[in-house]
């Protein structure tokens, strides 16, 4: 692992927390995949397997008041941010107790309490929104940081270009985090971009940028600290490219015809949990008991989340059209426009 992170954060406790969060996401999603085959979870399900170091490296660096915009591959972001696992799971079930009241599902996790601005299923769609959150902060002077996550596939969209220009032009506090996992569904980076060194694109907007090994949680965290600090101090956007890899299929429907099993296997050897855990072990920073304790805690949390989701309630069909518009009074419930 890199040793560039500020020393104070290299405490054993902190390291264990990073590891714990990555394992927590992984196990949660393994459970989701299982529940998907049981048809408890439906629709599209996009797993973060292999990319956990990005959310875990970046999000804890943010303050509570900061805001986050994510994509349809956002379970990890929501969990690390502190959206309660049980409300995330209930959302995947489509239950009223879900963090989006069951209306959104896997791709639309929202949580006002933690300033989690969703889950967006339109590739690139969250970028202008993040610019707007940054603009509001710029005008309100709250000194926030807006972290906006998106895949490298989104870089080809016009909205990427418009958003970077606006953020730079207006001096908005947006941290653009590109999760470059080298594939957009089945389209490899070289098939979607003429210039594959993504972080260099930020230069053409005058935005400071950096690329980091997104499989190394310590490196990501160190880069995120620099980035968040720069945004907070300079009130300007910053571009962080995290080079990572998606170890599973794009969604549950993807037969992965576009890449070799061998490529995936090679990458799996370097995946962030194994790698970080190995490093901690080699440095005697973790003991077997730590790991079993962590895993046991997480398993309990997951079991509780599943139980919560299972016993959750279905929204009555009479309430179908609710939340299309704000409700001025209770009598609006069930009223058609």
């Amino acid at each position, binding site marked *: 692992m890199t040793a560039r992170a500020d020393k104070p954060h290299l405490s054993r406790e902190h390291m264990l927390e990073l590891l714990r969060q990555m394992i927590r996401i992984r196990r949660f999603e393994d459970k989701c995949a299982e529940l998907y085959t049981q048809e408890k979870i439906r629709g599209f399900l996009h797993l973060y397997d292999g990319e956990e170091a990005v959310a875990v490296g970046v999000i804890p660096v943010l303050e509570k008041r900061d805001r986050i915009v994510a994509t349809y591959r956002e379970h990890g972001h929501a969990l690390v941010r502190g959206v309660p696992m049980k409300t995330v799971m209930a959302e995947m079930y489509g239950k009223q107790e879900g963090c989006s*009241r069951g209306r959104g599902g896997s791709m639309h996790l929202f949580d006002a309490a933690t300033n989690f601005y969703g889950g967006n299923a339109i590739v690139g769609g969250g970028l202008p929104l993040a610019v707007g959150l940054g603009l509001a902060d710029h*005008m*309100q002077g709250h000194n926030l940081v807006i972290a906006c996550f998106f895949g490298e596939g989104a870089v080809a969209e016009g909205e990427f270009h418009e958003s970077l220009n606006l953020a730079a032009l207006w001096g908005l506090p947006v941290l653009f985090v590109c999760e470059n996992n080298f594939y957009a569904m089945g389209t490899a980076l070289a098939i979607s971009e003429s210039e594959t060194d993504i972080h260099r694109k930020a230069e053409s907007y005058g935005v400071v940028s950096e690329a980091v090994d997104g499989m190394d949680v310590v490196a990501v965290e160190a880069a995120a600290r620099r980035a968040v600090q720069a945004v907070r101090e300079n009130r300007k956007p910053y571009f962080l490219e995290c080079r990572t890899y998606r170890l599973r299929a794009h969604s549950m429907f993807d037969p992965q015809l576009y890449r070799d099993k061998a490529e995936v296997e090679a990458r799996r050897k370097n995946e962030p949990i194994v790698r970080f855990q190995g490093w901690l072990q080699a440095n005697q920073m973790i003991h077997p008991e730590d790991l079993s304790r962590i895993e046991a805690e997480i398993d309990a949390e997951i079991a509780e989340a599943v139980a919560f989701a299972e016993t959750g309630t279905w929204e009555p069909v009479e309430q179908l059209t*609710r939340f*299309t518009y704000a409700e001025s009074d209770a009598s609006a419930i069930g009223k058609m426009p």
Partner: protein
Amino acid sequence: MTQAAVQTDTIEMTYREAVKQALRDAMKRDERVFLMGEDVGRYGGCYAVSHGLLAEFGPERIRDTPLSESGFTGAGIGAAMAGMRPIVELMTVNFSLLALDQILNTAATVRHMSGNQFGVPLVIRMATGAGRQLAAQHSHSLEGWYAHIPGIKVLAPATLEDARGMLWTALQDPDPVLIFENVMLYNMTGKLAADAGPVDIDKAAVRRAGRDISLITYGGSLWKTLEAASALAADGIEAEVIDLRSLRPLDDATIMASVGKTRRAVIVDEGWRSGSLAAEVGMRVVEQAFWSLDAPIGRVCSEEVPIPYPRHLENAAIPQAPKIVAAAKAALGRA
């Protein structure tokens, strides 16, 4: 009510000036309000609506944007979600297509997808309509088309009162509201009460009472329809003219009350005929007031052609008073 006030002091002004007063008023009343769009500041607005506001409110709140319709509309959505009250100007409806993903997939869905945790109190203004010989890419009338989208509201101010009064009400709305200003109205002058202020945005207005036929319309077509109503009156036909004002939601009650009385209706709408708002209004009448109808409902819409440049063809492509008269007479069996 939104009828021209005659009792108090009135001031003669243009529709353009009424919109500007509304903008200025909103900016003064609420510091969360700001205006953002292409050339709203230094240029003074492509139809001169925001001329002078930059000097008064500065470049942060009268914010010139780059040509990035999707980007700055999305930025308006984000700013609205974070407590501001943005007014995004999309210059004209013709360019709004570039922002449609943000409008339909984000602005209109966020409240629902988030289970009511986040709302988008955003106002989007744009000019709409043909009549200035701007040809196929600059003459769309898509407000009725936008009215298809659940999650947004769609307003079409036709009068000075509404141009002056709808904006503030829209800004109070917790959900996205699109306001369409017909390009042919900006130069229209009229009298407006000196103390004119916010108006409701829920009700259609009866702009002319009549017993023989209901002419239902909105926006730029209102004035052509009123002209047609005068011509009909000369032939002894008393048409009732309804100004829809809000295209989404539609005020069914006012429409049905009128048709229930007149038993005949013609709908006038500058959108292309197929899939026009006129079809929706007509279908609602069929659903809700079929048994009151004494004749088929008629509609006068734009012809199914991209708007051509030459004046005579442009005029023929969009609704005009004589066509409305003819449709009304046909509905009355007096063709």
